[in-house]
């Protein structure tokens, strides 16, 4: 039984690591993409598009922060 429980825990560890590690890197990359595109579009005189990518970047940054905090809270909840 102990082995079964540990196998389940190992699988959960793998899934949590993949979701958190890959997910946060991808979402944070979107935040950086938003910031970089905002600067380019602003310089090109396209304020609407710049605002849209800035909003997307800000949302991605907020998601990153929430995911990190959520991860720490879950980790410390046991």
């Amino acid at each position, binding site marked *: 039984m102990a082995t079964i429980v540990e196998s389940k825990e190992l699988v959960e*560890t793998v899934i949590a690591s993949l979701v958190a590690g890959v997910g946060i890197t991808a979402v944070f990359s979107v935040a950086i*993409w938003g910031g*970089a595109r905002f600067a380019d579009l602003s310089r090109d005189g396209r304020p609407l598009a710049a605002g849209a990518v800035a909003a997307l970047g800000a949302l991605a940054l907020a998601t990153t922060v929430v995911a990190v905090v959520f991860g720490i809270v879950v*980790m410390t909840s*046991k």
Partner: protein
Amino acid sequence: MVIVVGTALAFDFTNGFHDTANVVATSISTGAARPQVAIGIASLLNFVGAFISISVAATVAKDVVDASVITPTIVFAGLVGAIAWNLITWWFGLPSSSSHALIGGVVGSAVAAAGLDAVLAEGLVGKVLIPAVIAPLLAFLVAGLGIGFAYWIVGRQRPGPVTRGFRYGQVVSGGLLALAHGTNDAQKTMGVITLALIANGTLSANADPPVWVIVSAATAIALGTYIGGWRIIRTTGSRIIKMDAAQGFSAQGAGAAVILASTHFGFPLSTTHVINGGVMGAGAGKRVSAVRWGVAGNIVAAWLLTLPAAAAIGAAVYGVTRIFGTGALGPVLVTLMALGLIAAAFARRSQQGAPVPAG
């Protein structure tokens, strides 16, 4: 018991000295943080991390060896085996695993003292050996996938803002990795001290680590982190691959995710294994040939040697200690001999010149 606790804290110090530099290596090598700043933050977060969980301490104290046959002398010998292996790998600049050195040392001395029955095979395999294999591979996979997504998303943008963004991100990912390291690694020392206290009859069999154990372990690993590790920073941060900031972020994010998730379930991982797996994954995710596989191979060899080598040293130290009986004389003499050897090693090192700082 005083000698055992002191030795455990000395191990914790060498753990920080040896291991935690790996946590900051990626930040330093990508230019995300200056070495002293990165190490200062890592020390602080290692200290904080030690307080946020005791699952790993419980595993080390209760699931690896049979506490009913353990004596303080066995714990002492295991600790000396782990410290010796840490210092040997530090001497040669190889990232080993302090965690597995500790477990190997304790298992080796327990087997020397009480035979194979002293080992809880299910716990050792299920909670230490299998995660030890899976964790670096998982970090490799997570970092490789992460950097693949990152390049796909930001690949066509100007490099300046992208690099700056990921460098800012590395402040957080490096901090998370230090926090993760503190919570997983400091707990191993807490677990061993708790095991010794149980063996001594000071604590009951199912007791958790007392607050003074947690505070002292947190302090020792934080001090070790602050003081040491330059040679190993160089190995991890620049010799395995030349990293950009996105790779550094991906490697650190992967390492933090794997360690935090594993800590939640009480798996005593090696941060060194995980971060090196992440670094290699981030390198291979960009270009497989970017990874210096020769250096990576040396590191893997050191990983494979850690458990048996530390176990052998732990067993040998137990044998030497028992020559002087079951009292405090053996541990005192072994401690004096070990201190003499360490002093001689450091004296020789200082004659040869200081370790090479991170490049």
